[in-house]
């Protein structure tokens, strides 16, 4: 009898152990935000050429299922040909070279509370004295939960 009880106990505990499903909790946010420059107003497009001394409006569309939080824009040189672009287009790169006074643009911005869609609309001036050549422009966006998405594009400054 005691033996029987033992087996029932073990079987019951096994059942308990295996019955806890690993399904996702519906109350948590499991969706990443999206980021897109592939639309008519998106700027810069792949292989875009920017002139020194000019100002440009950088635009990208970001969305999230719940609430967007912040975005960042980073422009840095690609004189060493480290690839970041995920736009699919192959831009012709100049020969590799040493950086002397490359343009560095590193800025973060908050997105107004409660937004689920937002258009990044940022005026950036390309200084007169920076090194011309191949550059990368990368955008990234986070949502309130802490999910992040990134995209980047090859550009040229001349």
């Amino acid at each position: 009898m005691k033996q029987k009880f033992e087996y029932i106990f073990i079987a019951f505990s096994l059942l308990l152990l295996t019955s806890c499903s690993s399904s996702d909790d519906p109350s948590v946010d499991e969706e990443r935000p999206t980021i897109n420059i592939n639309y008519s107003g998106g700027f810069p497009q792949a292989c875009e050429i920017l002139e020194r001394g000019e100002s440009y409006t950088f635009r990208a569309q970001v969305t999230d299922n719940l609430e967007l939080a912040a975005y960042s824009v980073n422009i840095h040189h690609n004189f060493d040909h480290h690839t970041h672009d995920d736009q699919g287009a192959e831009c012709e790169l100049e020969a590799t070279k040493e950086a002397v006074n490359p343009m560095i643009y590193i800025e973060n911005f908050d997105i107004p509370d409660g937004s689920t869609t937002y258009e990044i609309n940022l005026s950036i001036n390309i200084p007169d004295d920076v090194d011309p050549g191949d550059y990368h422009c990368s955008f990234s966006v986070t949502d309130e939960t802490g999910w992040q998405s990134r995209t980047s594009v090859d550009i040229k400054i001349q």
Partner: protein
Amino acid sequence: MLSAWLFISLCASAGAQQNHTISGFVVDANTSAPVAGVNIIGKDLYAISTENGEFQIKNVPAGKYRFEITHIGYAHEHFTIEVVDRDIEGLIIKLTESITSLDGVELLGKTEKRKTQELSTISVGVDEDFLNKNRENSLMQTLKKIPGVSTITIGSGQSKPVIRGLGFNRVSVVQNGIKHEAQQWGNDHGLEIDQYGIESIQIIKGPASLVYGSDAIAGVVDIQPSKIPLPNSFSGEVNLLGETNNDLIGISTGVQGRKQHWFYRGRVTYRDYADYKVPTDRINYENYIFELHENNLRNTAGEEINASFSLGFVSDNIKSETFFSNVNAKNGFFANAHGLEVRSSNIDYDSSSRDVDLPYHGVNHFKITNNTSYYLNQHTLELDLGYQNNQRDENSEPVPHGYMPTPPNSRERIFTKNTYSLNLKDSFNPNEKHDLVFGINTELQNNNIGGWGFLIPAYDRYSAGIFVYDHYKINGNFHLQGGLRYDVGLLETKSHFDWFQTPVNNPDGSTSRVYLQRARNESLEFSNFSGSIGLSYIQQNTTYKINLGKSFRMPLANELASDGVNYHMYRYERGNIDLNPEQSYQLDVDIDHTTTKFNIGISPFVNFFENFIYLNPTSNYYETLQIYEYTQSKVFRFGGEARAGINLTPELRLDAAAEYVYSRQTSGPKKDFTIPFSPPLSGLLSASYQFKNIAFLQLPQLTADFRITAAQNDIVPPEEVTEGYQSLNLSANTTVQLFGKGKPTQLRIKINNVFNTEYYDHTSFYRLIDVPEPGRNLSISMTVPF
């Protein structure tokens, strides 16, 4: 099934007395290791072998005797001996391990097994035979087959332990009584321990801070000192290993010997492996596509050179061994995306699959330990001393980032860590009922940093703990254990400034360029009470255990004071100086029913963290990198393992095991999410068939392991959902008499991932960059004793 054999070698010595003595040793037929706790029973005569395998039967009148030799882990044997007019010395009894063990996970001998049963903590003993049969590329991968144990792997050559979903600094690794101290907080760090030459490992699943101190929250991997060799003996072995997936060549050779009181051991291990192959020719990560040359995961080659030596002394009341070891490894990291930063490079990685280019790390771990036991009446005093020097150089291509110009060299991060440990323990048996243990653990860590990438500050850490526990025997089968511990710690972080200037906007609108300060001189004190209480009850073939424990972990320097870009992970990591020691409460239950025919068992647990520390991705940026912040939250977890095995016929054994963990954060910014690196539900089905001797193959055995793992949909940012998978491993092992009458050679052939299945392991480091697990691998290994 129990084909044991027995060697009796006699050397008689003259004696004039009426009664005589029979003495000798009991050893394992395969390994020649001494076997303790063997019963040698004759009519009115009885002896039990000691820890060194020695036995002595005194007052034997002349006559012919039959002795039964029994031991739970070995085949039953007997021998007949005639005592005429002299003592019989140097009798050597060789026992063959019985294969009633749980798929090679042999509980350590009878006394050890019984001890384990009497302990209320949940533990599994692993012996050399299991290690040999399941040998993988690194120690923790070898132990992965044990339910509840998994690994975080980094490429093919490195891994670190995970117990029930917790790893990093929540599992203590102890070798020869000294806690292994390296950069175990790091994502791309692996355990620097030679997996050869290890005879036994005790794995504790559950809270074990009481005896092991800080970090033993999820459990302990306790690599125990090897047994002392027999007097006047010399033995050795050569282990050879070859693998096809990463073209690995491994050789390890060890010797040991003993005069009467002095003994020594030595071992040298060399392993060299090429890039490992994955069952895919392209890797797709965040829209970047990497073509792989001949399925090689480029730049994951590596090499490892280890050496160890020990010298010991043993007499009636003292035992002391001093152990020196050095582990040196160089491992490449997947070149296209070390961590998450996607790069192309001018390095021609595919020119050779054996070379190690940037990025790579070099690790050297030097260790000296001394274990001294002194037996004094009812006291056993044990002193463990340790010194460890861990040197780790992370090298990557110098690349400008943000305001940082191109660094001058490839030395990105250099860590030099010195750890000094002193443990003192007194085990006291005042009477039959009590086993009291008093202990003190002290440790000093000194961590220095270098290189152009800053992640954690240099620091000194002092810690000390004092504990007492009692093992109270209520009756023969009913045991109560409990204890208390108090720890204090002091962490002093050192200030650090960037080596380059960053423009900073001043309040007056101007901009100045400054060397940013990343870490300050801080002094942090911690103290903590921990303890545990548990019961064990043995009812014939069934063991019941229940244990409640509180364990803790001191926050680490990176958790408290990180403030920098982690280039490998492409994120900004920030510590929190206000973190408290992590506190974890856990209730464990274990029920095990084992007969000679079958066994079944479950070990469920419930766990609550007052303040689980983890790296939380925030929604904020620092210089366009997402900020990850060390945060504390309450975490609730439960889960456990279930196992069953049956000997269907004397030849065929079937085993099944399942493991599951559920985790939820119940407070904090990621409330209702799981915790990082949660292992999915997983099961392992094994079948093994024991053949009779086939020609020159002695006792060949065939084993199939089929792993079924469910999808992991329960994730926390920045993780991704991982699909479930099934994979099959096959292995065969046998012994062969290669060289005349010597000890037989062991041969093993293993095929991992037989169907070359493309699958992902949710807890692998490379999972984050969408790299599947290694493809089919054929490995052949051989142990030649001499």
